[in-house]
């Protein structure tokens, strides 16, 4: 399956990494792809490191294991860089996307000599400015879609608008700020390749 894209998410319990992986699966599904979205379940505690996964492909992917050699890694919480080997198995043809106010150059020495693409996005600042609370998953979702070129900006915006209307049916006031966070992230993700 040469056209398969594999993504691994690293976050902390409560930050929405699992939700982000499911939203990404949904958005990719809407573009006609075959998708898998699944977290690695464990004792669920707020703040504990968690991992979630996505496979996106043109035909049904038969593999049902975790992902050990991802094309892309998303780090939803910068403090995980000191705790988890986030670049383990990460393909050098791919990239890592990190939530941090730092530039890719500044963060690079924490990546165990990883030589692929390094991208950063200040999801905390975006989230606080748009939602007034810290929910980094929406900006991180937009950032990885942009970096991995999973779909174009307009398609993502349209798919997420639909998802948020469904997901936040009971709290419609958070839809517009989430969309704002999404759009800002698409333009603010910083590259070092």
């Amino acid at each position, binding site marked *: *399956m040469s056209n398969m894209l594999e993504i691994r998410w690293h976050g902390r319990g409560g930050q929405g990494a699992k939700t982000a992986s499911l939203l990404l*699966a949904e958005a990719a599904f809407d573009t006609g792809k075959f998708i898998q979205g699944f977290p690695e*379940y464990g004792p669920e505690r707020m703040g504990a490191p968690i991992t979630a996964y996505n496979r996106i492909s043109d035909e*049904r992917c038969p*593999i*049902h*294991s975790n992902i*050990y050699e991802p094309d892309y890694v998303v780090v939803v919480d910068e403090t995980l860089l000191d705790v988890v080997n986030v670049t383990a198995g990460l393909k050098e043809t791919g990239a890592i996307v990190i939530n941090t106010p730092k530039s890719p150059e500044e963060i690079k020495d924490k990546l165990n000599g990883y030589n692929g693409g390094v991208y950063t996005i200040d999801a905390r600042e975006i989230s606080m400015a748009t939602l007034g609370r810290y929910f980094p998953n929406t900006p991180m979702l937009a950032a990885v879609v942009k970096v991995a070129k999973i779909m174009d900006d307009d398609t993502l915006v349209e798919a997420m608008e639909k998802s948020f209307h469904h997901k936040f049916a009971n709290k419609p006031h958070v839809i517009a700020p989430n969309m704002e966070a999404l759009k800002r992230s698409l333009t603010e993700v910083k590259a070092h390749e």
Partner: protein
Amino acid sequence: MAIRDKLSGNEAVAVAMRQINPDVVAAFPITPSTEIPQYFSAFVANGQVDTEFVPVESEHSAMSACIGAGTAGARTMTATSANGLALMWEMLYIAASCKLPMVLSVVNRALSGPINIHNDHSDSMGARDSGWIQLYGENNQEAYDNAIMAVRIAEHADVQLPVMNCYDGFITSHAVENIELIEDDKVKAFVGQYKPSTYMLNSDEQIAVGPLAVPTHYFEHKRQQAESMRNSKEVIVEVAKAFKEISGREYGLFEAYKMEDAERAIVLIGSSVGTAKFVVDALREKGEKVGLIKVRVFRPFPAEELAQSLKGVKTVAILDKCDGFNAKGGPLFSETTSALFVNGYTPLAVNYIYGLGGRDVKTTDIEKVYSDLSEIVTANKVEDPYRYLGVVEA
């Protein structure tokens, strides 16, 4: 026209239950099956089904309530996992021996202890001799399809037995993947109306269900129960044919994948089949004669058919996602090798216990099995047929 959607295995089974609209669902929540009654109770609350939903206080009560509903002539469904299934144990045998068609989705999880919420097959494999038919699905699509087919198998006049719709906890139950749903009206037409020939609330023809059977009658009762299980094999194949008409998807007792000229084969059950198929495809590209068999129906056990399918191989690895604790191998190994022996075939057979308690099963694990099989072919013998895959030895 099929409905393209993306659902977790549990969501898919809940949708199947909505489409089937059973008379009674009695359930008690346990991870990872909890979402099934959770989603289904929302369908009840929204008026999308007219099912009597009975939220009971334990799994023993859940199965008891299902038995009560079944004897009254109701189409009945429930779901559970692991220790929940263990708590149903006594009542599983009652449901089967009372010949009550019902469908229990078993979201496979390791049976304690040590306590573990993740996937293996120790729960349903323990219940393999309870008299229930057991279907195993590989992914969300098969969990959904089997839930629908199970109703027709269970209620068939020649069967009248309860059916377990088993699929892997978390790996299948919680992962979101593409699925093709069948239109509501087609599912309803496929399962039809449940019209039991005899039932307790039929005042025109009163019957007793589950009374005392003294030694002059008990044996004959069990003999008839066994006959229903024997009959079910043909019915399962028939129902699969009818299901193909509405879905386009093909099901049998098992799936033989690239087995025509295979010299080395793996036999396994559940979500790791896809991972193994990926490996088979890669090895085939290198010209290696490998194949696999995915067992879909474990009860009744398709012994003759399985033996036929394996008769040409030089060696076969049988993978069990639960240990047998008989010090000789897991249940799938014991039954497959027994089937081979009785039918006169003797490929070099080896057993691997794998994936216990959610231990991830990787493509490299499956590659190792095929590579071990090559060594067995070269050595032309199996020194140690009872092995472990992916365990850290002390």
